[in-house]
C-alpha cells in the first residue's frame, strides 16, 4: 500500500516543501545534484572537484559520474560522505577508460539502499589547473535541490531516472545571460589576446528516444545593446568559442560597429550575450522536445601582452551565467 502511494506522497511532500519557501538571495544552495560543466584529463591539466556533505546527521553516498563529452559514455564511482565530510577528486587519477574531457554529475545515493535520493546538503566547487598555460580558475557547479523534503527516492514518475522536472529535482533554466564578455581575438593572434569559451552540457541528450541534440538561440550584444544572433547546436557536451559562434564577438567587429567609444577595459571592447534553448531533435524520434536543458559555464582567458614581454598580465575567470525561466526536459541519468 505504502509502496503504491509512495510517488504520490513524495509529490505531496514536495509541494508542501516548495510552497512553504520564501525567496531569498539568488546564491547557490546546498543541493541534491551538482552539475560541473567541465573536467579534463588532457596532458598538463588537473581538474579538482570538491564535494562536501554539510548535513550534521545524515551520511550520503556521493556518486561521481564523469561523462566524456565526445562519446557521452560515463565512468562512475561512489564515495561515502559522513556528516560534515568532504572529498576532493583529481581528474588525473581517473583511469584511461574514463574519457578525456566533458562534464561531471554528482548525485546523492542512499547509504543503505543505494537508490538515488533527495539529499539537499551537498555543496561543491572546482579548481582547474592548466600547467600548459599556467592558468588556474575556480568555478561553481550548477546546483539542483530536490523539492522532496525527506531523503526520498528520486523517481516520483516511476520512469527510473532522476528528472529535472520540478518534482524530483528543481527545473533547469531556459534562458541564460552573461554579465559581459571581452572582444575576442582572432585565431592565432599574438600580443593581447582574449578567448571566451562556453562549456555547454545538454541534459536532454540522454533522455529515452535520443540522442537529443539541442538547438538554441545565441543573442550577442555590443556595449550599446546592438544585437547579433547565432543558432548553436549542442550534442552531449560542447566547448564553444564565442568567436566560432559569431564573428561579431571579435574585438575588430565590436570596435567597428556603432559602439560606445568611451568605454573599454584595457583597450578591449566588450559586450554581453543571452542563450535561450529552443528544441531538441533525435534521429530516433519523429517528435521533438522543447525546450531542451542546456547548462552553460563561461570561461574567459585573457592576456595583455606576450608571456615573455613586459607587464605581462593575464587572468582566467569562470562564471556561471545568470538564469531565467524554466524547462523540465532535463534528466540526470
Amino acid at each position, binding site marked *: 500500500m505504502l509502496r503504491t502511494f509512495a510517488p504520490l506522497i513524495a*509529490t*505531496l511532500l514536495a509541494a508542501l516543501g516548495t510552497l512553504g519557501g520564501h525567496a531569498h*538571495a*539568488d546564491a547557490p544552495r546546498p543541493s541534491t545534484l551538482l552539475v560541473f560543466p567541465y573536467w579534463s584529463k588532457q596532458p598538463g591539466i588537473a581538474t579538482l572537484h570538491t564535494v562536501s556533505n554539510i548535513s550534521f546527521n545524515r551520511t550520503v553516498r556521493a556518486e561521481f559520474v564523469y561523462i566524456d563529452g565526445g562519446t557521452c559514455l560515463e565512468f562512475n564511482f561512489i564515495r561515502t560522505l559522513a556528516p560534515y565530510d568532504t*572529498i*576532493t577528486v583529481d581528474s588525473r587519477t581517473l583511469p584511461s577508460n574514463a574519457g578525456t574531457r566533458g562534464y561531471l554529475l554528482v548525485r546523492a545515493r542512499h547509504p543503505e539502499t543505494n537508490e538515488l535520493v533527495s539529499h539537499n546538503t551537498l555543496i561543491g566547487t572546482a579548481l582547474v589547473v592548466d600547467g600548459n598555460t599556467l592558468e588556474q580558475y*575556480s568555478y561553481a557547479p*550548477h546546483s539542483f535541490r530536490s523539492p522532496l523534503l525527506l531523503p526520498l527516492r528520486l523517481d516520483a514518475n516511476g520512469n527510473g531516472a532522476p528528472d529535472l522536472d520540478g518534482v524530483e529535482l528543481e*527545473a533547469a533554466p531556459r534562458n541564460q545571460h552573461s554579465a559581459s564578455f571581452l572582444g575576442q581575438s582572432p585565431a592565432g593572434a599574438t600580443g593581447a589576446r582574449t578567448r571566451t569559451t562556453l562549456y555547454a552540457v545538454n541534459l536532454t541528450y540522454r533522455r529515452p528516444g535520443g540522442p537529443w541534440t539541442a538547438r538554441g538561440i545565441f543573442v550577442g550584444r555590443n556595449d550599446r545593446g546592438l544585437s547579433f544572433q547565432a543558432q548553436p547546436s549542442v550534442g552531449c557536451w560542447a566547448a564553444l568559442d564565442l568567436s566560432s559562434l559569431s564573428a561579431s564577438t571579435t574585438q575588430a567587429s565590436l570596435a567597428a560597429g556603432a559602439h560606445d567609444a568611451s568605454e573599454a577595459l584595457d583597450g578591449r571592447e566588450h559586450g554581453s550575450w543571452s542563450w535561450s534553448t529552443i528544441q531538441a531533435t533525435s534521429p530516433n524520434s519523429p517528435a521533438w522536445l522543447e525546450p531542451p536543458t542546456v547548462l552553460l559555464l563561461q570561461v574567459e582567458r585573457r592576456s595583455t601582452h606576450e608571456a615573455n614581454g613586459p607587464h605581462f598580465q593575464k587572468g582566467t575567470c569562470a562564471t556561471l551565467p*545568470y538564469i531565467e525561466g524554466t524547462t523540465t526536459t532535463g534528466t540526470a541519468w
Partner: protein
Amino acid sequence: MKHSIQAALAFLLSATAAHAGTAPASMLVNPVYDLRDGRQSYLTLTNISPTQSIDVRVVWVSEAGCREYARVVRLAPGDTTVRSASLDLYGPQGAHPQGARQGWCYAYAIRQPGGVEARGTPVAFNQLVGRMLVQDALTLHDYEVAPWAFTSPMAAHAETDVDGDQLLDLDGREYERAPDSVYIPRFLGQVGGTAASSDLVLLNLTGGREFDVTASLAVFNDDGAYFDATTSFRCWTRRGLAQYSSAFTNAFLLASNDEPTESFGVRESGWFRIDGVHAQTSQDSEANPVILAALIEGTRGVLGGSPPANATEQHSVQVQPYALGEQSNGSLLGRGLIYH
C-alpha cells in the same frame, strides 16, 4: 485519481521549483573592490531587457567607515557598461578620498531621474546582471568576484521603499531576503611564507555602518571534524584567512585527526560556515545579523612541483559561496546608531 492528483501537483511544482542559480536582479552587492597599490577594479553592469532603459545607482563603499561614493549610470535596452572604481572614486584628477583604497560596492535600479532627487527613487527592475573584475599588477593575474544578487518581488518599475525608511530592505517585500548562513565549499590550508594565502571578506548588512558585528565561523577539516571561531568587525573587513583562526592553517589541519589519505594537491583542505551572531552599537543591538562573504583564494603551487619561472606569479580565484536559510533584518545601508 492518484495520477490526477500527482499530475496536478507536478504541474504546480513545475512552475515554482525553479533552478536556484542567480537570476537577473534589481540590486547587485559586490563584496570586493580593490584599489590598493597595483590593483584596479572594474564593475560591469548589463541591462538584459530588450525594450526598457533603466538608471542604476552605483555606490562604492570604502573600508574606512563605510563611507559612500555614488554615481548614476543610464543603461539602454541590452546596454553594457564598465565602471572603473578608480575613475568613479578618484576622478580623472586622481584626487582620491581617504580610506577608499578598498571596500565593496552595490548597484541598484532607480527611477529615471526627474532632476530633483539626488539619490533617485529605488525601483524594481529584475533585469540587471554584473560582475567585478580585479586586476592585480603585483601578482600579474586577474580574478573576478560574483555579486550577491537580490531581486525585488514588486512589479517592474514600482517603487521599492515600501516603508519609507530610505533604506533598501532585504525583507522579502522590497527585495529578497538575505541568507541566514553562508557556506564556503573549499579552503586550502594556509602555510604562510611565500606560499599563496587566501583572504576572507565579510560584510555586515544589519544595522548599518555604525554597528559592530560578531560572526561565528564553523571550520571543518577533510574528515568532518569541527572547530569553532568567532570574529568581530565593523561594516566590512578583508583579512588573511589565518588571521580569523588557526584552524585555517595547514599545520593545524594536519594535526586535527584529518583524513591522511586525502589532500588537495600538496595542501590540506576543508570547508566552513559563516553565521552572524549579533550586531550592536552603544545604543542598540540586533541578533543574527546578515553577513555576506567572499573568499579570494590564493592557489599558487597548490599542486606542488617546480615554482613558476616568474617568482612573483600567483593565482587568485574566488570560491563561490553557497547560501542557506533566510532572514529579513538586512538593509543597505543604515547610518545611525539605532536599528530600523
